[in-house]
């Protein structure tokens, strides 16, 4: 699989002055380890001026990863992964909601498996050595070609390639979100009970179907979107209602540039009140922008700076085919 991927990358990537094939190979290893490396450890998560600690255990077996994260601070919650299934557990509704927020980004998973598209929108820089959680590691930087997007820095363990520290920075260099292991062992705990949930209330996060809906669906869709920044591809498009009783149907499209996940919601909206774009921070690196356009209300949500989302939404043109 890795050789194949390397072959694809070699065929697809133009010669980059800054990143060698080795570096991309390393990134692939880092991505794989982030998702599969068995471990037991504790990490910190910082965002919005808040610091939280999580304990994580993970055991991997032939493509069937089982892991459990428990929040040690703040509202009690845990997140359990069982292969493709991801479930949040908490003792009450409020904590359950907090659990869902925590599971937006599941460090040390840093990005999607398929990194071949990342090179379109990001340059990869291999940087200096460092020491995190008493282990030697190497910094990597994913710098967006588009200066409107976040910069990602990852410090990965030299031996296993596991991400030990990850930082999300604005173009100006401000850190908006950060994860760091404070201690980690590269083997799962012996005690199987450590993988079991302790809380009663649960909510299963959606499992993305293995075959995502492809362009054919987009082609048949009545909604046409133009003006997305270069590098973003449509990866999902569904008709849905938003949660909450009486939610009206919206068209939900998901775009990705390999690193960023961006949702675009299109709803029918006759009112001309919200014709100006305005943005808001939702949560850490994730922001939102809304704008009315003709008979549509557009909303974008994703891990891009707020000001960038506002500019982005202004440049979108959405039309309905009759």
């Amino acid at each position: 699989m890795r050789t194949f991927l390397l072959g694809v990358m070699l065929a697809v990537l133009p010669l980059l002055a800054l990143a060698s094939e080795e570096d991309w190979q390393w990134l692939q290893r880092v991505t794989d380890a982030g998702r599969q490396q068995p471990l037991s450890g504790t990490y910190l998560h910082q965002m919005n001026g808040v610091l939280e600690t999580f304990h994580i255990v993970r055991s991997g077996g032939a493509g069937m990863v089982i892991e459990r994260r428990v929040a040690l601070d703040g509202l009690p919650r845990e997140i359990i992964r069982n292969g493709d299934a991801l479930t949040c557990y908490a003792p009450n509704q409020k904590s359950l909601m907090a659990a869902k927020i925590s599971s937006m980004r599941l460090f040390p998973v840093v990005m999607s498996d398929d990194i071949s598209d990342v090179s379109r929108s990001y340059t990869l820089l291999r940087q200096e050595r460092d020491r995190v959680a008493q282990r030697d590691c190497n910094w990597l930087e994913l710098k967006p070609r588009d200066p409107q997007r976040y910069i990602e820095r990852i410090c990965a363990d030299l031996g296993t390639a596991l991400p030990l520290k990850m930082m999300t920075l604005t173009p100006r260099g401000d850190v908006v979100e950060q994860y760091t292991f404070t201690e980690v062992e590269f083997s799962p705990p012996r005690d199987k009970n450590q993988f079991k949930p302790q809380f009663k209330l649960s909510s299963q996060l959606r499992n993305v179907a293995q075959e995502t809906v492809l362009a054919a669906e987009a082609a048949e869709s009545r909604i046409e979107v133009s003006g997305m920044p270069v590098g973003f591809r449509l990866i999902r498009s569904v008709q849905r209602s938003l949660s909450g009783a009486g939610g009206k149907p919206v068209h939900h499209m998901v775009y990705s540039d390999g690193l960023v996940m961006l949702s675009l919601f299109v709803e029918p909206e006759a009112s001309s009140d919200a014709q100006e774009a305005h943005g808001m921070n939702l949560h850490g690196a994730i922001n939102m922008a809304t704008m009315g356009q003709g008979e549509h209300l557009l909303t974008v949500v994703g891990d891009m700076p707020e000001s960038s989302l506002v500019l982005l939404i202004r440049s979108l043109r959405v039309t309905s085919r009759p």
Partner: protein
Amino acid sequence: MKQTVSELMDGELEQSAAARVISAIETDPSLMRDWNDYHLIGDAMRAGAKMNIDVRAGVHARLDIEPTVLAPLRWHQRVGLCKAGAMAVAASVSFAAVLAWHQASVGSRTVMVAAHPVRPVSRPVQSDPDAYFLAHQELTADQGLVKVTYSQGVRH
């Protein structure tokens, strides 16, 4: 009408008649009950089923909150477009409450993160931001497992 439910399940109706009966069952609870009970009878006679199980209500409730799936080649007109006005406020827990907790638990350690408090929204947002966040999360969380296939036909 009931008799057509019986005929439908035996595959004895031709396509357009079958379509009509399916629609009737979908909209008439007593016909839906007949559909279930007739199948139950067959299952019992063949003794190849667990009889004391009924997950219909549970599945129906779960499906109600699922995004409607659409398969590529069979896309038709959107079904059941709701003409209601602005959305109701979403989850029982608002972001404000959760973030208040967030802000309250700042540790004593020096935080390197640029403080970025939530700004009050200057203009009314059409729908509760919570709802968009949850929807976004549903389709993008755990992105490591998204197997993405791109095709040339995508417009940007």
